[in-house]
């Protein structure tokens, strides 16, 4: 074989090498997104003895100051943290028995609640939670942290809370507080 042919072959080989390297390194192809983690279905609601209850603490705003005040009440105990957490949110929506303010429009419903393995509680409210009168930084802060602080305070497995509306991620409730990230509890908003 003559020199030219060798050089041609050399070029081709190198070109192939470059292409191969770019191909394997670049890897910009679409990747299948990891599927959304579903709540573990393992937790079967066990037939608990009917008498068993659990003392929980709700955090609610008052007319006196801008803080969240504790109000304890009993809920039926369950082996499932998710079930108990649902109950806590429902009690929050029901409102205070001691004259504290309600941080939710009364029509608000809890649609769904699940807790990921990483300890993020996803709490899905009906669209009523975005009622017009709720707009305002103080109002939004109180609504959000009433949920976040109450859940994180009562349930050790819950580290953060993500608020959804009608199953979707929303930017804010009324134009202020960022809902597109999970919330850590902010206990400085609690009165004690």
């Amino acid at each position, binding site marked *: 074989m003559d020199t030219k042919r060798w050089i041609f072959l050399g070029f081709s080989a190198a070109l192939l090498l470059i292409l191969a390297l770019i191909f394997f390194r670049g890897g910009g192809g679409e990747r299948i997104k990891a599927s959304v983690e579903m709540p573990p279905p393992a937790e079967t609601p066990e037939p608990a003895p009917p008498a068993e209850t659990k003392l929980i603490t709700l955090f609610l705003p008052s007319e006196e100051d801008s803080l969240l005040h504790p109000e304890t009440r009993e809920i039926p105990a369950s082996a499932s943290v998710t079930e108990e957490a649902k109950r806590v949110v429902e009690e929050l929506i029901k409102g205070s028995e001691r004259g504290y303010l309600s941080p939710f429009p009364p029509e608000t419903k809890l649609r769904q609640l699940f807790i990921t393995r990483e300890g993020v509680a996803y709490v899905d409210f009906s669209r009523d939670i975005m009622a017009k009168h709720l707009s305002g930084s103080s*109002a939004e802060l109180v609504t959000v942290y009433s949920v976040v602080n109450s859940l994180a305070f009562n349930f050790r497995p819950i580290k953060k809370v993500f608020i959804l509306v009608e199953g979707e991620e929303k930017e804010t409730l009324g134009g202020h507080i960022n809902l597109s990230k999970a919330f850590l509890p902010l206990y400085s908003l609690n009165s004690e």
Partner: protein
Amino acid sequence: MTGPNEIKALKLTFLVLLFFSFLAIAISPPELKAMAAPLAQLEEPPAKRIKVIVIDPGHGGLESGAKGKFGALEKDITLAVAIKLKAVIERNLALRVELTRDKDTEVSLENRAAIANNNKADLFISIHTNSSYRRNARGSETFFLSLNATDEEARRLAYLENNSAELSKPLADEDQDEIRMILWDMAQSAYLKQSQSLAEIIQDELNSLLGTMNRGIKQAPFKVLTGVACPAVLVEVAFISNPEEEKDLVKESFQSNVAEAIYRGLARYLKIAG
């Protein structure tokens, strides 16, 4: 037949090509380049002269914000104050002032941050009036951003901030989305100290000039502040949900005082920050 010279030439060709091939793979994919851009903003900003201020009148258009008992709308008051503030700054300081909206239009929260960043804002001030469930809630407060990060995340962010070179290394695909999210979330995080001192000074002026109750400075995860790449604060002037304060808020004299107070705060901040 190939002589020894030809073989040498061939070897050389191979070496050169190999060199270029490595060069080709060393060039990072475009996603990495895109990520490097916001990273530049993460480095502790040098004490540069403040030239551009972006003022953000809260809400607008169909999104009217909070509503007072007598019908005052937050969006109208914030716009009136912002226009007055722009005028008083331009009258007294050699600065360019941009508004995120200058009429009653809807602007998304992310676009407000984008307007600030595209104008290369050196300071960002968002103006709001507050609203509460409490009928008697009153007073003014100034917010700066809280990150809502766990200690673990905060450590990671701090690490990235101090080791930005780390990010020029290729990342696993599944990490890239998350990192980009973090970078957007971090736009404001490099400026928290300056944002805090700006908030303190503005709050101080609101207290002395406006006579509204002092609610202090606070941190909260405000959407509009998250993506702003400069010191940024959100001023909550009085409570539109409080009928007495609502009456004040619609007065032009009160609105001028708000603008004057924020302007004085700015002027004081400029003396400190250059």
